[in-house]
């Protein structure tokens, strides 16, 4: 009778487990990574924004980890898709904090999603940094212990900046507003009204339109008849293009100062040559392919060929700087505990980002790192976003 060593399933499993354990052992000996959670739109209409933010964070992590990480530990990104849905965003944020135990959260493009996460972040005492969504109440949320910071444009400041632009560059005295009919348009209507009131100016009317409206001529004709000498435009890429096409058809040549909506990749394809007349704000622009960050981008993401492939660069730059600021704060705090990081956010200084060098970027009164002085007015030329030179 031959001697048998039956390889039972149990033995095999035990062996496999042992091998797995053995191979993970050296990693365990090292420090655990410090996790950062991202909640952004990674699918659907706004997927491009999630991609830009991910690229920005990835570049920053590469730099930080290359220099030894934070607290001697590597930084690691854990991403969740919010599908531009506030409910899903909140669930994702909760899961990241409670199960993944992330040290901090980074947000996405959609203001409603960020607004849904804000109360949770404050309650859970986890720093939440916004690299894109511009809604004013995200950082001005009234919480006593405010854990929400932002490295992006803020509606209130944008409205102030585009008003100043129309007044100083074009001498506008009675501008009109053409705004998308949603909470974003609403929020900017308030901001623009405030900016006009401050200057004792009147407006030629507030007109709203739907994102699928074919013809905006009736609204624009009203503004023209009321004597508008400049236009404020707040809408995303496709609806902004509808406004430009309608203006073209009317043959109305009027200065347009816009929020950053048109900064999607194909604005001039949709709007035609008239699209180049729209002047909008950005927080950052790549002006040539030799920019060190652009070179790094191409290295890490070979699918990027030209500057037109990274429009808008704003999302990448904001996320990059936000991650650097966060890393500096964790290092300063000497801990990954929320309250310590928050306190350190107020103490960091001299952090070199791609938009600027941040000296005391945050104070308890102002949790926004960027202000109107950091905005760049820009326009499309040949499908690329370029800064306005004057």
């Amino acid at each position: 009778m031959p001697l048998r060593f039956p390889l039972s399933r149990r033995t095999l499993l035990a062996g496999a487990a042992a091998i797995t354990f053995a191979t993970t052992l050296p990693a365990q000996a090292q420090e655990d990574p410090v996790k950062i959670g991202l909640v952004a739109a990674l699918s659907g209409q706004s997927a491009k924004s999630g991609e830009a933010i991910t690229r920005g964070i990835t570049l920053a992590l590469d730099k930080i980890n290359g220099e030894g990480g934070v607290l001697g530990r590597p930084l690691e990104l854990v991403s969740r898709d919010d599908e531009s849905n506030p409910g899903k965003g909140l669930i994702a944020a909760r899961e990241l904090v409670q199960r993944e135990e992330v040290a901090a959260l980074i947000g996405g493009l959609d203001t409603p999603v960020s607004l849904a996460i804000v109360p949770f972040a404050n309650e859970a005492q986890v720093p939440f940094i916004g690299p894109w969504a511009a809604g004013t109440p995200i950082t001005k949320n009234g919480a006593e212990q405010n854990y929400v910071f932002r490295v992006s444009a803020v509606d209130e400041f944008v409205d102030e900046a585009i008003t100043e632009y129309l007044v100083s560059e074009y001498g506008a005295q009675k501008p009109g507003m053409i705004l998308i009919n949603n909470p974003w348009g609403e929020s900017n209507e308030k901001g623009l009204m405030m900016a006009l009131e401050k200057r004792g100016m009147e407006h030629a009317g507030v007109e709203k339109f739907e994102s699928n409206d074919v013809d905006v001529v009736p609204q624009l004709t009203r503004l023209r008849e009321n004597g508008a000498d400049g236009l404020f435009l707040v809408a995303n890429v496709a609806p902004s293009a509808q406004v430009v096409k309608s203006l073209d058809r009317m043959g109305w040549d009027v200065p347009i100062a816009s929020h950053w909506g048109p900064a999607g990749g194909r604005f001039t394809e949709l709007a035609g040559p008239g699209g180049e007349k729209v002047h909008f704000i950005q927080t950052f622009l790549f002006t040539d392919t030799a920019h060190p960050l652009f070179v790094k981008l191409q290295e890490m993401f070979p699918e990027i060929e030209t500057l037109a492939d990274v429009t808008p660069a704003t999302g990448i730059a904001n996320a990059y700087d936000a991650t650097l600021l966060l890393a500096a704060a964790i290092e300063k705090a000497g801990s990954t505990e929320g309250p310590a990081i928050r306190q350190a956010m107020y103490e960091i200084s001299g952090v070199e980002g791609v938009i600027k060098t941040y000296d005391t970027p945050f104070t308890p009164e102002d949790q926004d790192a960027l202000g109107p002085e950091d905005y760049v007015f820009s326009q499309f030329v040949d499908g690329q976003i370029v800064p306005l030179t004057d």
Partner: protein
Amino acid sequence: MTLFIAALVSGIGLGAMYGLVALGFQITYSVCSRVNFAQGSMVMLGAVLGYVLSERAGLPVIVAYPLALAGCALMGIVVEFCLIRPFAMRNSDAWLMATVAGGILLDNVVLFTFGNEPRSLPSPLVETSWQIFGTGVYPQQILIPVVAIGLAFALQLLFRRTRQGRALLAVVQNPEAARLMGINTTAMISGSFALSSMLAGAAGLLIAPLLSVHSDMGTLFGIKAFAVAILGGMTSAWGVMLAGFLYGLVEAYVTTFLGSSYTYVVVFGMLIAVLAVKPNGLFGTAALRKV
């Protein structure tokens, strides 16, 4: 005066589009008392297919657009076969929800395959605008009402003069008798959905150069066109077309003279008021309900 003319031009252009899409509702409703609630998605499908065939595949417009329309017709047949017939056979009203779901499904399939970036369908008719009475008009905007009225006439001819058209009318008047007379009612119903989707697709191709091509471009059109079809009275083709123009004009004039904040309040308020006074729509006739 400028305001008045500008609103007139916008209103007629928009109205023709609503009328064209609404005509699609009217055709199937007359034939089998059912409609395809995914009509808005058919508008989108026409534009997307037109874009893909002409811009990406590089086919000349004269080949690409008829192919796009054929695609829409095919989709209409699929909708009838998969989303309407199974429920109609069981006398269930679930086709209503099924077609709505079908539309959402189609929008999302297009989102994944076509991409989430809106694209532009070029047309030589939107490159320069003509200035008339202080307002600008794209030739495309003139083309839309011309094509819409032309198509309505063609349908009229089809119904009155061709064998298939007469057969379709027979189904409208009395499906049972028509079937007993040897008319293939199933094929006729299927054909009416193909025709209906083709009209929506044509509207999509006509609007696309004025708008942009993307997966949810048809949603709002579908809803407005259904309102137009109800307003026009569902049973009368010319009534629906007229209601389309009326709706477009009211929309444009309200926006121009009262402001865009009031557009939907006034337009849909008026719609409800009209239906309260004339429950069968402006030009519809009361249907006999056999109990």
